[in-house]
């Protein structure tokens, strides 16, 4: 094989122009082809093999309830329940009209069914209290129903005032109403939009948190060719909200979350810093290469080879592997980081040879025969390392393995053909100085002389790290890898903090409705479960009594709630007259010592002073949406008995499939953002229902799948590389010599993960097998140099090459660490860390292990053809 390599380099030197032209031409065509056929499939569902049992269970549930697939959840928060209800209704209608962007739009809590019967879901005491409150508020309700305008509002308030004056109403009872209206009036005078919540005023109680937050479930039309498939839909939601005036200035926020939004947010974050970090890493790359080579021409040669290699790799990916996925697209970073090493090794060795013999042709030949072997072995080993990703269940990574594996081989080929050709053309100048780290000589000697102590120290450290390995923690929660500043992610965290709205629920598909009820009852007894919902949860209890209470109230309120005649809208003068009367009576109430009444009287007098100009603003704050609230009230009083059969079809379809299987939704007790809570919750539920699915289950299963995949890949890589090395080096001890420093680096990385509280996760676990592929090259260079009888490793050009290779690889990985995407940043950090340890072990542990160069060499070694000392 060495002969082949030497031959290749020689050929390329002789036909430099031809080789260069050919390579550039191929790169051009390849690049064109790749650009034309480039596609990316961002469907994260495809990243893990669909044949795994937990994937099949997930699929079964998705197929049973296709309306819950790929949801974009719109969350509307408002200051008053009225705004929340009305705003959500308007937004949902607007979105439903955009059929091109949304497959379906539905509001789970706002159908007529809930408006009418929602009240039955309160407890009997709450229903009674509601009915009593309505009866007590009848004067207000009756007046407003007959005149739902500004005039009606102030007539009603005037009534209250008169009641207080005559002593039939306690002043304290109307304090909050007066304060609210005064506040809204003053806001109107200041030009601000701060509407009164009539729902709160009529029911007399503070709104529950759930009433201030409403949801719209949409299924957007997704374009998987797009890097952010749901972006158009998300933008449409925000635009619609803006057009409807659902903005923070008006006290309403509209946010978007759900699996689609989170994936998009991920890509947005990834793309965000990508430009800067790419620029930085390219800059640093050039810096390192320049420092390593001290020549502009060498820099140009290496960069050209790199770019051609990247294009070739990309072309292969597009032509053979097919669409990229979110993981395999990272091949570019890997390629640049690792392939440039080959160029550096070759070039540094060339410089070294050129220093010894100042003749270009001779130097090139010596380079080929000197570094060709190690380079070939190193490239093969790295390639094999990547190929070991292929037979795993993590399809995302196996594609990456294919591409990177082939990429390494392409890089090798190019560095043995194109690079020499370019060097020939560019005719770099001679080397004036010795290439290597002369100052490292003492260190070389130290490591060899004090082998025993260095190795003993290393062994102690290794044992220490080994002890820490069991404590390595894997954070399986993919949300911790997301950027918490992205709206989709922060909204999700917000929802998760409330046990009733958390999306981290376990879903069970039971074969029938009665079975579902039975299972739900069993599940609810578990201490880790807060509740288990089924379709029957929508059938209220104690309906007879509650309906009787409501009918009783309906009898009393009916005639005034739905008056035969509603007054026509008032003229501005009539409105002002009503305000004047109210102001006067409020003043009398204030004379009895009521602060709120005084405040309201003052505000109303200000309105009168301002005149009719302020009336529209006042109406917007004080008299808006009264009709909607009255409608809500009318519907509530008409509540009908609810049975499983009388549930709305859409609601039933959410819980029961057409073939009778029923869904159970199980909610965790405690904060779902905590991994331990999730773990215990999933374990407890799965003990009763082994084939339960849902986020708490799938993210843990994904974690197992991914860790298994990487563990498998790691072992495969180790085995394959060992076999390769055994074939090449033919001595078990030397194979071990290559692998031991890597093991050491791995242990150090894991130990740091434990001590530095950097848990492993989906993103950075790739560092461990990568470390194997990258680090093995360094060790191979040193070991083969040592085998060839060349000691003084640290002061050699090889060491220089290794150092700068590590720097370039480290830069490529380090650019990831700068990303604002926490997952990518984690990955970058761990990669840099493991690379650093690899370097340390290669530079300090390996020489100690190797010891002094063997004076006698067996005849049948690969490098005997070299024979010379350099």
């Amino acid at each position, binding site marked *: 094989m060495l002969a082949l390599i030497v031959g290749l380099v020689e050929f390329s030197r002789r036909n430099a122009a031809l080789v260069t032209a050919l390579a550039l031409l191929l790169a051009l065509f390849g690049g064109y082809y790749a650009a034309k056929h480039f596609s990316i499939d961002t469907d994260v569902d495809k990243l893990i093999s669909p044949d795994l049992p937990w994937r099949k269970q997930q699929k079964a549930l998705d197929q049973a309830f296709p309306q819950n697939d790929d949801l974009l959840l719109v969350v509307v928060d408002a200051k008053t329940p009225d705004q929340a209800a009305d705003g959500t209704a308007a937004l949902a209608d607007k979105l439903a009209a955009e059929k091109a962007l949304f497959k379906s739009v539905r509001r789970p809590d706002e159908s007529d069914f809930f408006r009418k019967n929602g009240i039955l879901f309160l407890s009997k005491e709450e229903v*009674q209290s509601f*009915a*009593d409150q309505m*009866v*007590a508020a*009848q*004067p207000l309700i*009756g*007046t407003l*129903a*007959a005149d739902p305008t500004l005039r009606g509002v102030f007539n009603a308030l005037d*009534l209250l005032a008169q009641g207080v004056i*005559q002593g*039939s109403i306690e002043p304290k009872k109307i304090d909050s109403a007066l304060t609210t209206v005064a506040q809204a009036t003053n806001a109107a005078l200041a030009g601000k939009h701060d509407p009164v919540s009539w729902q709160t005023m009529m029911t007399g109680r503070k709104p529950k948190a759930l009433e201030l937050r409403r949801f719209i479930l949409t299924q957007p039309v997704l374009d998987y060719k797009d890097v952010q498939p749901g972006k158009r839909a998300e933008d449409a939601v925000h635009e619609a909200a803006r057009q409807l005036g659902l903005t923070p200035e008006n006290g309403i926020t509209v946010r978007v979350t759900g699996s689609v939004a989170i994936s998009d947010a991920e890509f947005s974050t990834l793309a965000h810093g990508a430009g800067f970090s790419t620029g930085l890493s390219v800059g640093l790359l050039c810096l390192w290469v320049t420092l390593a080579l001290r020549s502009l021409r060498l820099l140009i040669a290496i960069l050209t080879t790199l770019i051609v290699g990247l294009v070739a790799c990309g072309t292969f990916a597009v032509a053979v592997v097919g669409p990229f996925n979110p993981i395999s697209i990272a091949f570019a970073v890997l390629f640049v980081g690792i392939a440039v090493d080959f160029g550096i090794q070759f070039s540094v060795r060339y410089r070294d040879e050129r220093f010894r013999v100042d003749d270009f042709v001779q130097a090139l030949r010596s380079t080929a025969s000197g570094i060709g072997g190690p380079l070939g072995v190193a490239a093969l080993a790295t390639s094999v390392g990547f190929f070991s990703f292929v037979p795993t269940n993590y399809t995302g990574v196996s594609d990456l393995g294919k591409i990177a594996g082939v990429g390494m081989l392409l890089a090798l080929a190019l560095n043995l053909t194109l690079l020499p050709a370019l060097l020939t053309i560019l005719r770099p100048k001679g080397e004036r100085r010795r290439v290597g780290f002369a100052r490292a000589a003492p260190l070389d000697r130290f490591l060899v002389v004090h082998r025993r102590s260095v190795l003993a120290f290393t062994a102690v450290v290794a044992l220490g790290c080994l002890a820490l390995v069991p404590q390595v923690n894997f954070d399986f929660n993919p949300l911790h890898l997301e950027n918490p500043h992205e709206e989709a992610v922060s909204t999700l965290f917000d929802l998760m903090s409330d046990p009733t709205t958390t999306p981290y629920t376990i879903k069970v598909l039971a074969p029938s409705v009665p079975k579902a009820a039975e299972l739900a009852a069993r599940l609810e007894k578990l201490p880790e479960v807060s509740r288990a919902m089924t379709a029957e949860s929508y059938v209220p209890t104690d309906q007879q009594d509650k309906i*009787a*209470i409501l009918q*009783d109230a309906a*009898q*009393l*309120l*009916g*005639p*005034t709630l*739905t*008056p*035969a*005649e509603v007054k026509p809208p008032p003229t501005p003068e009539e409105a002002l007259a009503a305000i004047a009367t109210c102001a006067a009576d409020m003043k009398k109430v204030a004379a009895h010592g009521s602060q709120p009444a005084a405040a309201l009287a003052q505000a109303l007098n200000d309105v009168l002073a301002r005149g009719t100009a302020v009336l529209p603003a006042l109406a917007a704050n004080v008299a808006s949406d009264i009709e909607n609230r009255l409608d809500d009230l009318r519907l509530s009083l008409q509540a009908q008995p609810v049975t499983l059969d009388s549930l709305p079809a859409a609601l039933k379809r959410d819980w029961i499939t057409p073939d009778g299987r029923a869904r159970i939704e199980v909610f965790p007790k405690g904060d779902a953002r905590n991994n331990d809570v999730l773990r215990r919750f999933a374990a407890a539920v799965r003990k009763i229902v082994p084939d339960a699915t849902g986020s708490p289950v799938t993210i843990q299963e994904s974690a197992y799948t991914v860790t298994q995949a990487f563990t498998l890949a790691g072992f495969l890589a180790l085995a394959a590389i060992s076999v390769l090395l055994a074939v090449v080096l033919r001595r078990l001890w030397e194979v071990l010599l290559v692998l031991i420093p890597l093991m050491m680096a791995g242990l150090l990385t894991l130990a740091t993960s434990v001590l530095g509280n950097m848990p492993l996760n989906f993103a950075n676990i790739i560092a461990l097998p990568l470390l194997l592929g990258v680090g093995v090259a360094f060790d191979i260079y040193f070991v083969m140099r040592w085998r060839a009888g060349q000691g003084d490793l640290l002061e050699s050009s090889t060491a220089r090459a290794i150092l700068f290779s590590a720097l370039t690889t480290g830069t490529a990985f380090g650019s990831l660490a700068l990303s604002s995407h926490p997952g990518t940043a984690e990955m970058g950090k761990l990669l840099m860390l493991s690379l650093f340890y690899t370097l340390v072990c290669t530079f300090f542990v390996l020489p100690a292990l190797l010891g002094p160069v063997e004076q006698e060499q067996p005849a049948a070694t690969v490098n005997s053809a070299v024979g010379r000392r350099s």
Partner: protein
Amino acid sequence: MSDRRLGRAARRLATALVGLAAVAASSASSLAAAAPQETIRNFYSVLLGAMKNGPTIGVRGRYDQIAPAIEQNFDLSYMTQQTVGFAWRTLSDEQKKQVWVAFTHYLTATYAVRFHSYSGEKFEVTGQQNTPYGTIVESRIVKSNGEPVTINYLMRQNSGEWQVGDIYLTGAISQLATLRSQFMSVVEREGVPGLITLLNNKTQAMMASPASLVGRPGRPPAHATPTF
């Protein structure tokens, strides 16, 4: 000459007969249509009578005059039931009767006290509306200073008779709702016996209050409209 007189008499008789028939016919139909309004008109006339004699006969006298009108024109069992509210179902027949009696006294006393003298008020029945909840009779009381107050009545039919179910002040404020919310806390705390005691106490207080004393002519009425 006697023939002509006979003829004229016959014609007069015929006209009178036709007229009578017409009157009979129209009154028969308007009797049916106007029955709910009739109830209110009857009640108002009794009320007016009591007001006009008010200062002389005193509260007791007015009470005695108004009481039969109340019993006849108001659906008192319905009103009592609505005032008590949801607890009505739990009452025994005896208790129901007791509450009914107490409520009736209370209602009558209230009217007797409020409508204590006459100073030019006008009671007008202005029309009626049929709604899904029942027939609503619209009326107006024009105060001595010319200010009109709208009072509507929800009318219920009780074995052919039209009686008042609920009274709506200013057309929108239900008196039953007001009463129920007023008595709600008592019913909750002390049950229906407590309510009965409360009603009786209020009635006694009203009947003994200074505003209901005989005499004091010439003093303008403090309130000419019923406010419970």
